[in-house]
């Protein structure tokens, strides 16, 4: 079935659209709305956004695949986005990523079998002062160590449990 916005999202979309005289500029925020609503941007979701805004699906796909923060594949309940850029790497991000991989049994880009976690590496999260950093869904976790990561993951698992 082709996806479509709930009434509430539809209303948000209309309000947002009114702020952009150039519809092309509304592609990014509309994709964010779609990702929030549908979890990830499937081909159908891209097609839906294309129809909403009056572009070809190819145009929308081009934008969606250019930016790494749009998920073209389904992600787990918790999307762990670990920074691998310069400051975080200097502060040991590489080891943390390995640690998480081992603990969760997945490689970066993978999702645990139960669908709880997706592990991704991302570029600078703009929080170099508190490196190493990861973003879990919308929340930042800073000054990470193996121990703090264990605590975060265990906590999330319990919550999910």
């Amino acid at each position: 079935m082709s996806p479509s916005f709930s009434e509430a999202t539809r209303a948000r979309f209309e309000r947002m659209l009114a702020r952009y005289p150039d519809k092309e500029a509304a592609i990014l925020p509309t994709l964010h709305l779609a990702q929030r609503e549908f979890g990830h941007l499937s081909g159908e979701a891209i097609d839906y956004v294309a129809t909403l805004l009056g572009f070809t699906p190819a145009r929308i796909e081009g934008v969606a695949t250019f930016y790494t923060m749009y998920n073209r594949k389904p992600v787990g309940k918790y999307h762990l986005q670990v920074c691998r850029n310069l400051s975080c790497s200097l502060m040991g991000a590489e080891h943390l990523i390995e640690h998480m991989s081992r603990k969760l049994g997945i490689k970066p880009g993978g999702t645990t079998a139960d669908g709880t976690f997706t592990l991704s590496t991302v570029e600078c999260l703009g929080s170099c002062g508190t490196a190493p950093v990861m973003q879990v869904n919308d929340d930042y976790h800073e000054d990470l160590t193996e121990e703090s990561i264990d605590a975060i993951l265990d906590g999330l698992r319990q919550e999910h449990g």
Partner: protein
Amino acid sequence: MPNFTINGISVDVPQGTTILEAAKTAGIEIPHYCYHPKLSVAGNCRMCLVEVEKFPKLQIACNTIVTDGMAVKTDSEKVKQAVTGVLEFLLIHHPIDCPICDQAGECGLQIYYMKYGLHKSRYAVEDKVHKKKVQDIGGQIILDAERCILCSRCIRFLQEVTGTGELEFFQRGDHSEISIFPGRPLDNRYTGNLADICPVGALTSKDFRFKCRVWLLRGARSICPGCANGCNVEAHFKEEILYRLKPRQNDEVNKTWMCDPGRLEYKKANEARLLTPVNRENGIPKAAPWEAALSSVAFRLWEMVEKHGPGSVAVIASPQFSNEELFLARKLADEVLRTPHLGFSLRTVGDGFADDFLIKADKNPNTRGAKLLGISEEKFDDIVQNVADGKIRALLVFGNGIADLSDAETGRLLANVPFVVQIATNEGAVSRAAHAILPSASFVERGGTFTNHAGRVQRFWMGFPPRGKARSAIEIITGLANRLGAGWKSGGEAQVFRAIAQSEAPFAGMSYESLGELGQTAGGKG
């Protein structure tokens, strides 16, 4: 008019001219990939870098407007290094599979590498990013994504010319890739142009794929016979086989484009050709030498006129034939056979699709020409009526088919006529019924002119002599007329056109010289 110097040569150019275009007028080539004269400027390939005095950095020639007193260098060491560097970047992930690439021989990468590159790649072959090859993306196109240099010409063509926007770049960085949205193939009637404008082998023609190496092909300037638009084309052939049609620039007619159905028009010159004169004796078609064929046709026509009067003979001309041929056909009917029954039948194809760009509903290249020469379309129905009533004893049919009559209808109609002669290129319902077939030259086997829907008279040139025993229709008609006592001087299309210019008001003052490569508009209404 700004005056500027390029490599020391002083040139005047119109206001607003880019360095790249201005360089052309000075005879200087500036290498470029993304720039295309009929598309918007993207400025993304960086091949056109030039040095401009007083500018700290190199500038892209495709998007820098010439100003008065500007001094440009395209051959300095700095420019050469930059261009080689850009080329090295563009080739980093290129698969270099020229031996299996149709573009080889007319590829921008090959050409510029030999001229501006000749560098050793510093990138390891095993580090190259690979992308999907051999993708059928619809229309006439095969996509090989890893050959693409991301110039965006194809994207701009589909946005600016067809307005359909099927292609886009997906992903980013060295994973950037040109593609269609899954399940949404190319959906327009101009896809073949993508293979022309793609400077590399990323978008190639499905039809031409692996058929022939391009350096073996020769070209003839021609006119697409596919519809009344008369797009200027280049017909590419090897020996006696046509391989493809490519648009030839004519800003008044087709700019640098042509349509997809038009691109396949060449096939008829290769397939199911009538290549030898045929006489049917007691129902059995027999190949005949030209002399015998022409004499027996002339004799039968004379016999009918003698026995049943000129009104018993009819001529169905065809707007598939050139102005020169139609002019002679008219003279044959009017002055030699003296029959009132001369009309032309329109070839109709498919749904008669037309758009507001190039494609015309009339699928004949010379309908306007036939009308301007005073051959009437209205008479055609009259002739058909006379045939059906059994009043026509001899019928001379030009062309492969009769209007939009089906094969069965054609057979039934022609069965009413004791003697049917056909002058045509291809087998079909008419050739199956004709008592005599006089095979004529295809559009690339003869020269002449067509008059397009807008009255533009345009020349097409002979690429190679008629295949088999076929002859130009000019020779055939003249041969018949002279056997009927006309005493015409034999001559080529140029001579016939001179006669047209002398006696036909709409063509007055025209000559092959004045028509040139791009044609001229005929006066008067058609």
